[in-house]
């Protein structure tokens, strides 16, 4: 495990794990590692925000601890909870159990944040979709991210032996607090250019012919920028589409192929209708026009 990678080594490692990106993505990641600061990643769904944490864990060869945020997430689910059932059993087994015996680390259910703090090695902590929690939890989170210690009333203060590499992701559904943003290095990931998307397809699905990869990336670029869709297709959908076309033995896009496989890239009815109208009106002309 080497946390002192140079910028060039980091770029090489990202490429080795098929995460294709430019310096605009790599440099903030590098800075977050060097300056020991959390990395806050924003961008549309499906541009590869979560993937950054996964790749980092692989590169650094450490454990990835993931806290998936959702509406109504509380500290019991994020930090720790006492193992009530086990405590009860202990009471039943030995009537002479003292209260202090029941509140030891043995009876503590560690949730992701506490696990990251107590980890024996330096882990990567991914706090995914942080914009889904409420402001109070966010405030708790940035306190934790500045001190890396937790006070448990029955146990005292637990301090991190190793400061985790923290990656937070957000879909910008809610403005995050200034306090949280101030503590982080910021990275905004946009959809890739067609050229970069070709590289991504070629890296992740090497069997896709270059010409088809080029057509796919142009079509995806147009779908994201040229049509008013409710949900823009993500990179994952690009790759699914490429794989599907490959397994159908299709070497070149035409209007019928796009219409027939549109369900791979657009996942709601009104978007599918929008694409169908576009194909009826212009065929592939605008779709494949760079």
């Amino acid at each position, binding site marked *: 495990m080497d946390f002192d990678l140079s910028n060039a080594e980091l770029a090489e490692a990202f490429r080795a794990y098929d995460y294709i990106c430019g310096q605009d993505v790599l*440099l903030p990641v590098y800075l977050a590692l060097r300056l020991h*600061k959390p990395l806050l990643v924003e961008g549309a769904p499906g541009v590869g925000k979560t993937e950054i944490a996964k790749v980092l864990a692989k590169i650094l060869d450490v454990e990835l601890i993931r806290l998936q945020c959702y*509406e109504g997430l*509380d500290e019991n689910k994020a930090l720790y909870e006492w193992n009530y059932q086990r405590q009860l059993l202990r009471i039943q087994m030995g009537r002479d159990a003292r209260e202090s015996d029941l509140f030891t680390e043995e009876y503590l259910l560690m949730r992701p944040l506490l696990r990251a703090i107590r980890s024996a090695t330096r882990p990567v902590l991914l706090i995914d979709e942080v914009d889904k929690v*409420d402001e109070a939890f966010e405030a708790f989170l940035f306190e934790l991210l500045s001190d890396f210690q937790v006070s448990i009333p029955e146990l005292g203060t637990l301090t991190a032996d190793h400061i985790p590499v923290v990656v937070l992701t957000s879909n910008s*559904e809610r403005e995050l607090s200034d306090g949280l943003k101030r503590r982080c*290095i910021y990275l905004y990931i946009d959809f890739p250019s067609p050229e970069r998307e070709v590289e991504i397809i070629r890296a992740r699905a090497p069997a896709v012919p270059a010409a088809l990869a080029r057509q796919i990336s142009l079509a995806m670029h147009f779908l994201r920028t040229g049509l008013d869709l409710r949900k823009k297709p993500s990179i994952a959908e690009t790759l699914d589409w490429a794989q599907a076309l490959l397994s159908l033995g299709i070497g070149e896009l035409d209007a019928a192929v796009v219409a027939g496989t549109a369900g791979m890239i657009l996942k709601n009815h009104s978007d599918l209708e929008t694409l169908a109208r576009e194909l009826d009106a212009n065929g592939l002309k605008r779709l494949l026009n760079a």
Partner: protein
Amino acid sequence: MPTGSNGFSTPDPGLLLTLRLARFAAVLRAAGIPVGSGEVIDALDALREVDPLDREQTRLALSATMAKDERAHASFDRLFAGFFISPQEAASRESSRTAREELQAAEDRRRMGEGRADLQFMGRQLDLTDEQLATYSRLSAAQRERLREFLQRADGDPASLDPALLPLVEHVVREHLERWRRQLAVARRAAPGANDEQIDDGYRGFVAGAGGGDDPLLQLDMQQIPAQETGRAMALIRKLARRLAARIMRRYRAARRDERIDFRRTIRANYRYGGTLIDLRYRARRLRKPRIVLICDVSGSMAKYSSFTLYFAHGLAKVVSDLRAFLFAEDLEDVTPRLRALAGTPSTLAGLAEGSKVWGKGTNLGIALRRLEDEHDRLLTGNTVFVIVSDTKTLAAAEAAAILARMRARVRGIIWLNTVPADQWDTLPAAVLLAEHVDMYQCSSLGDLETVLRRAILVGTG
């Protein structure tokens, strides 16, 4: 600061860099990007980690440490390009600044001459300093006019004039000019660069390029959106409506599960442990998404905002399943089914307007809300969020305020998007009255709507 062989201090490069970054931070702040000293320190640390001669790396390092949201990110590149410039560009800026200053000085001289001619009493020039004359020259036309009027009135009847009055008049004029000079100085200090030319230049370069960084469409008053931009505006409004819906519908608070143990299921589940309550079962909290009731003002005074109102209503109808939409003017009209059925192109939405019975009439929110209470009482539950789009120019405002106060106690929240700019609310008695009972937000441009969404709306509910 180190001292050179000639006895003069030579600037420390680290200090120079810090100063330069602090100036850049001031430019960012002037452009609306919040940058604290913590961010400047991070930026300095980041710069130590990158190649100082690589402009691209420098830009990325500063962007990652100083521009921390999507909006800031979008304007950062232009601010960076305008501030960190080549020596040639700096020299050309310096010469254009000198030229600008010379022009300004010539203009000041000309206006001071005018000032001397303007500020006379009994045919004699007042005894004023150059600085006071310069202040006069910088005043607005209206302010200069007021001063001239004062002198003319004082000059009124030549027969009754006493030359002894001259010092008194001079004193009054001087006092006035001094007061304005102080005000101008304060206003100038509040300007972005506080007279620091580097900051001013950086900021000027940024403002000169299209509308301060954001999409120019966001800055336009909604009644001025040009026809050729309608499609884009509609898409933007739909996107914002979707975000508003997400903000309202999201349940951020944690369920209080510790209070809701399901005893029947718990006891049943624990038979196998001999009745010891090991495996607790909780009553699942029913997840109820709130209902949105949208009430759009389509009276005559709101006619110019009609496109916005309709696109907004349509955008919400497409994303919120439990939405009731009403149009109101003198009365209330339920348009929910018709709105859902529409395709959402400008022409079909205009058709909705034409088919409406209340379109373009006078405004009586009192009647409209009373009808809502009478006929749609079951909509008023703790699960309902009201969104009202209106300019508050209504009859029966007191009655409407009383009904809103009643409704507020029954519903989850009332959000009022007001197309009148907030600084004019004080002048509208109805706005003052109604704002007491609702969460009122200025919403005259799409940028305003975006700002509303960035603020914490309906905090603590849910």
